């Protein structure tokens, strides 16, 4: 940014001090540093510091109200042998993979549909966003009623239709509980994927489709060789966020099942809260939360990797 003179006239020391200060003062990098300070301080204070504190806490036996002593990896050693912890890891991965994959499929399909010309386009697009706008806890309570073991509307309707003889135990059986919370998460997460992909689709120039149509491309070929490559960077970003949101989901599970039945729907986030805050063992709770970091780093790495491949945007090959 600043130009540095290669040869300078010899000066006296007093002169040099004054001028180096004035040079610093006018240095754009130096000024920029000050402008970045608020943002930097904000990040350090509210993101880096709590994260560091959490990681540090996972190496202590802190309880609520007591700071605790350093105990090294003891919390992690305990978790390594803890069946409930591994169950929560399995649940989290299952929940994330299944929910994200289905959210992507439905979201992409919806985006392609919404990208077409149709009457009341704006209205329909805004309706799609509703599940995303409703506060999670509210939608969780709605699902809680839908899944209720006695008063479920699904069970009620099916019974009235004569299809089942007794109520479905949505949240009482481990596997159906898992499926139920995944469905609730998908319902909530689809709009985010759909609307963001729709935004991506709008940036694709119609002339490309025109040219392809003239060349006799089928609709699948148009999707495969035009839409998909141009959409890939957006997909990378959307899916990263979708995976992050799903992996760290808490409210839905907490409102629906509290991690039950028999811990079948405990995610790492809910288990961490139960052990750390409810049961008062901050150290162990922090260790569970810290154990989520490697998974999240992988997700972020994939996105970073995806976003670097700018060539995709030009439709070129990857190298």
């Amino acid at each position: 940014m600043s130009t540095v003179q290669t040869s300078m006239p010899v000066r006296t020391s007093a002169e040099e001090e004054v001028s180096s200060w004035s040079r610093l003062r006018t240095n754009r990098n130096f000024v920029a540093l000050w402008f970045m300070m608020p943002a930097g301080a904000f990040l350090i204070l509210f993101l880096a510091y709590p994260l560091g504190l959490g990681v540090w806490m996972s190496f202590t036996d802190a309880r609520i109200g007591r700071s605790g002593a350093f105990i090294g990896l003891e919390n992690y050693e305990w978790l390594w042998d803890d069946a409930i912890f591994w169950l929560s890891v399995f649940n989290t991965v299952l929940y994330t993979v299944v929910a994200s994959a289905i959210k992507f499929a439905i979201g992409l399909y919806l985006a392609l549909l919404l990208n077409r010309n149709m009457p009341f386009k704006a209205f329909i697009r805004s309706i799609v966003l509703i599940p995303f706008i409703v506060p999670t806890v509210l939608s969780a309570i709605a699902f809680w009623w839908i899944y209720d073991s006695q008063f479920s509307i699904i069970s009620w309707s099916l019974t009235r239709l004569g299809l089942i003889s007794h109520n479905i135990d949505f949240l009482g059986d481990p596997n159906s509980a898992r499926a139920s919370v995944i469905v609730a998460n998908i319902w909530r997460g689809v709009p985010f994927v759909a609307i963001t992909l729709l935004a991506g689709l709008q940036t694709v120039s119609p002339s490309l489709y025109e040219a392809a149509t003239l060349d006799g491309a089928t609709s699948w070929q148009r999707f495969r060789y035009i839409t998909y490559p141009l959409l890939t960077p957006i997909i990378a970003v959307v899916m990263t966020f979708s995976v992050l949101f799903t992996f760290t989901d808490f409210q839905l599970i907490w409102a629906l099942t509290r991690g039950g039945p028999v811990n079948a729907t405990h995610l790492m986030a809910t288990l961490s809260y139960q052990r750390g805050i409810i049961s008062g063992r901050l150290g162990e709770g922090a260790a569970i939360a810290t154990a989520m970091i490697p998974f999240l780093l992988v997700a972020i790495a994939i996105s970073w990797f995806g976003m670097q491949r700018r060539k995709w945007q030009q439709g070129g090959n990857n190298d």
Partner: protein
Amino acid sequence: MTDFVTDRRSLLKGGATLLAAAATMSSEELLGYAKAWAQTSPWKPEAGAKINMLRWKRFVEAEDVAFMKIVDAFQKANNVTISVSNEAYDDVQPKASVAANTGQGLDMVWGLYSLPFLFPTKCTDMTDVADHLAKVGGGWTPSGEAYGKLNGKWIGIPVAATGGLVNYRISAMEKAGHKTFPKDLAGFADLVKAMNKNGTPGGMAIGHASGDANGWLHWALWAHGGNLIDKNNKVIINSPETAKALEYVKGLYENFTPGTASWNDSNNNKAFLADQLYLTVNGISIYVAAKKDAPKIAEDMNHAHLPPGVDGKIRELHLGFPILVYNFTKFPQTCKAFTAFLLEPAQFNPWIEAAQGYLSHFLKAYDANPIWTADPKNTPYRDVAATAMTPAGLAQMSEGAAAAIADFVVVDMFANYCTGREDLKTAMATAERSTKRIFR
């Protein structure tokens, strides 16, 4: 309970008069009383004190109204401010814990269960208040002391408890071949089985329901002689007695209405009031709601203590409501004075009546409150303190016991076995391992 039927009419009459007398204390009278009380109180509130108090959100509206009247009178008489914030059951503890950890935000908390024992080092010594209350309230029950005292020092004042007792439909019980409520474990199991066969099933939460599931499953464990820890905090959950309790509960679970593994604290209330459930363990709230909205159910239901264990003694776990004062408050005298004022007979009697049996006392003198006999169906809830144990069981209440119950160690053990996720030995071993870790 049924013994009271003969003279129910006269009891109702007498009770109603007393109730009316207590409830008629107007705000002015209450204020006058509060002023007089402040003169003689051993705790002198700090001038201009401002207190932030967090309490559990009321279940019975009249209780909250009565409580706020007490707060109001205390504020005016002592020229202090008490801001009361209400939180749902499940949110009280996290907020209280955060306040304890950060040392700010709240001065006192009226919480649930064994809250003071989660962070005993942050609680003000309330021994003087407890001693004063013992004098005016006829002494503490042993369970009251167990809930308030740690190593001889009171770290909280157990204000009241919600009794977790059996709620049953009389007609369904009689149809199942029991004229009176069973008095032993075998009879109770038989009742549950027969009711299920008749298509009028019972059901108790076996999911992460902090009040209901913890309550009855601890009873089942203790009734069979099982314990999480012995009196020296040694872990003894892996035992033949626990195995018997597990088998017993599995027998009950198989005869419950489906879905109890997912129930939280409100499922059984809803199902009972909708004629879908005929026996459960709960506070008196179902009955209170039924009297208002479903008189037929109210007429046909009654309450009973869970049957005694193999040694003939009833041990139950009820939902306690202790008040704690943080040791970082700037106004300890005000907090103490308010706690004492709240439990003073002139306040406490109308308050406990307003709660309509939902809240049972730990101070012996309040056995005489007319609410317990005005309706014989309330009477079992009078004796909640007499059968109450702390989650620590044989041991003294402690941080570890509070952590174990918050982590659902016992509930998960039963649920793991009943739902077939783990076999008997693994279920006990898992619970043993978790408990050992907590008590290391």
